[in-house]
C-alpha cells in the first residue's frame, strides 16, 4: 500500500489467488444473469438471447417487485423518524443505560430472523387484519434494519460534537425543536444517508423474517425468488434474479461510495 513492492513470486501468487476468489464471487452472478436472457440455458448461448424470460417474470411477479419497493421506502421512513431522535438521545447521554439500549436494538442483527419471526407470529398472529396486511412484514423489516440506521447516525453524531453546535444555536435563542430540525438533523445527514442506504438494501433483500411473516397477498421480491427457485424453470428463476441484481447493485455501489467518502472524511 505504502510503496511499490518488488513484483516477485509472492505478488503473482497472491494475485492469482485473489483472482480465483473474485471469480468465485462473480462467476455465479454472471452465469445467473446470462441464464436469464438465454432462450434455452441447457443448450447454451447458441440458442440465442431473449428478454422473454424477463417479461415473463414481470407478468408473474410484478406485484412482489412493487411491494418490495414500497416496503423498503416505508421501512426507511419509519427507521429515520424513530431512529434519528433515538440516536440523538443515545449520543448525547452516553453511559451504561445508553449501551444497554443500543445492545437491545442490535438484537435482531445477532438473533436469526427465524426466531424473531416466530416471536412476532406468536404475539401478533391473532391480530387478524394486521397479520394479513403488509404492515406485519413492515414491522419485521423495521426492527431488523433499525440498528443499522441507529449505529450509522450515532457514529456521525459522536464524531461531530453535537453538543457545542447545539449550545451555539441555543445561545442565539433557538428552541429545542428548531435546533433539532435545523442544526442536529442537517449535521447528522451523512449518517442518515449511509444508514438509509443500508436500510433500503437490507429491506429489499430481506428473506428470513419475510418468508415466515408473509401471506399469499403480501409476497415480497425475495419471497417470489424462493418461490421461483422451487417451482419455475431455471431461465425464469435466473431472469428474476437478474431483476433483483438490477435493483440491488446500484444501491450497493452507492453504499460503497458513501463508505469511501466517510473514510476520507475521517482522515
Amino acid at each position, binding site marked *: *500500500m*505504502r510503496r511499490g*513492492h518488488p513484483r516477485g513470486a*509472492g505478488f503473482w501468487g*497472491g*494475485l492469482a*489467488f485473489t483472482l480465483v*476468489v*473474485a471469480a*468465485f*464471487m462473480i462467476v*455465479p*452472478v454472471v*452465469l*445467473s444473469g446470462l*441464464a436469464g436472457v438465454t432462450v434455452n*440455458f441447457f443448450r447454451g448461448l447458441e440458442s440465442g438471447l431473449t428478454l422473454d424470460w424477463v417479461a415473463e417474470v414481470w407478468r408473474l411477479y410484478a406485484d412482489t417487485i412493487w411491494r418490495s419497493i414500497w416496503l423498503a421506502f416505508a421501512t426507511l421512513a419509519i427507521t429515520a*423518524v*424513530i*431512529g434519528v*431522535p*433515538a440516536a*440523538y*438521545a443515545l449520543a448525547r447521554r452516553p453511559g451504561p443505560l445508553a449501551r444497554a*439500549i443500543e445492545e*437491545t436494538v442490535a438484537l*435482531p*442483527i*445477532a438473533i*436469526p430472523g*427465524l*426466531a*424473531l419471526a*416466530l*416471536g412476532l407470529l*406468536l*404475539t401478533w398472529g391473532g391480530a387478524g387484519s394486521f397479520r394479513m396486511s403488509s404492515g406485519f412484514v413492515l*414491522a*419485521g423489516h*423495521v*426492527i431488523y434494519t433499525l440498528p*443499522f440506521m441507529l449505529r450509522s447516525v450515532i457514529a456521525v453524531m459522536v464524531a461531530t460534537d453535537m453538543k457545542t453546535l447545539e449550545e451555539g444555536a441555543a445561545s442565539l435563542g433557538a428552541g429545542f425543536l428548531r435546533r433539532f430540525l435545523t442544526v442536529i438533523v442537517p449535521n447528522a445527514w451523512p449518517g442518515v444517508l449511509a444508514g438509509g442506504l*443500508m436500510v433500503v*438494501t*437490507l429491506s429489499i*433483500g*430481506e*428473506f428470513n423474517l419475510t*418468508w415466515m411473516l408473509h401471506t399469499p397477498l403480501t409476497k415480497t421480491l*425475495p419471497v417470489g*425468488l*424462493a418461490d421461483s427457485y422451487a417451482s419455475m424453470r*431455471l431461465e425464469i428463476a*435466473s431472469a428474476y434474479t437478474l431483476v*433483483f441484481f438490477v435493483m*440491488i447493485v446500484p*444501491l*450497493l*455501489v452507492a453504499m*460503497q461510495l458513501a463508505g469511501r467518502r466517510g473514510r476520507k472524511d475521517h482522515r
Partner: protein
Amino acid sequence: MSSASGRETPRMVLMLLPAGIVLAAFLLVPLVRLAIAGASGPDGIAAYFSILTNPRHGHDTVMTFILAVTVTLAALVVSTIAGLFLARHVFPGRSALIAMLTFPLAFPGVVVGFLVIMLGGRQGLANLVSKALTGDRLVFAYSAAGLFVGYLYFSIPRVILNVMAAAETLDPSLPEAARSLGAGPVRVFLSVTLPALMPGLIASGAICFATAMGAFGTAFALATDIAVLPMTIYTEFTLQANIAGASALALALVLGLITWATLFIARTLGGRGAAAGGG
C-alpha cells in the same frame, strides 16, 4: 443550567419513546412470548434442553456447529490471504477487484443459494465442465458441500473487509524490523502480522460463525438433504402438530442465544465488525 438539564431528561425520554414503543411491541414482547411458549409444551422447561435430550435436535445441532466452524475457518484463511494481498499492493484494477469481492455482502441468503445452484446444480457450471473433461457428472449443490460453498460465499466479503481494515492500520515498519533481524516470511507472519490482525479476525470470525449457525435462506433455496438447525426449526414449526411446535420455539430461542452470545463475546474480545445481510 440546572433548569436546562432538568428539562433535558424528559426531552431525552421523549426522543427515545417512539423507537421504544416499536421495539417493545415488535421485539421485546415477541421474544418474551417466544421464551414462554417454548416452555409451555408437554415437556415444559425441559424443551430448552432438547439439544441434549432429543437425538434429532442433538444431531442437527452438531452438524450445524461443524459446518459453521469449518466455514468460518475456511473464510478466515481465504480472506486473510486475499485481504493482505490487496492491502499491500497497488496495481491497476485493484479497486475493481475489491468491489467484486465485497459487493455480494448484502445478497440475501436465498439468492446465494441460487448462485450455488448455478455453480453446482444439475445444470450448473461444475457439472458442465466435469462432463466435458471427464465424462462424470458433478452435482454438489443439494448436499453439505453445497451449503458449505454457499456459506463460504456470503462469509468471504464480511471477513475481507475486516482484514483489509486491520491490515491498513498495521505499521509497515514492524514486519520490516522483524525481517531485518533475520526472521523468515513465515516467522514474520506468525509473530508480527497475525497478532496485529487478531482482533479483526476474531470479530469477523464470530460474525461468520453466527451467520452460518442461523442461515435459513441458503439452506431453504437448496432444499438440502442435510438438516441444519434453522431448517429443523422451520419444518417442525410448519409441518408438525403443536406438540413439536413448543420444542421448535425453544430450539429457535436456544439458537438465538448461541448466536447472540458468540457476537457478544467476540465484541468484548475483538471490537466491532461490520455485519450485513442475513444468510
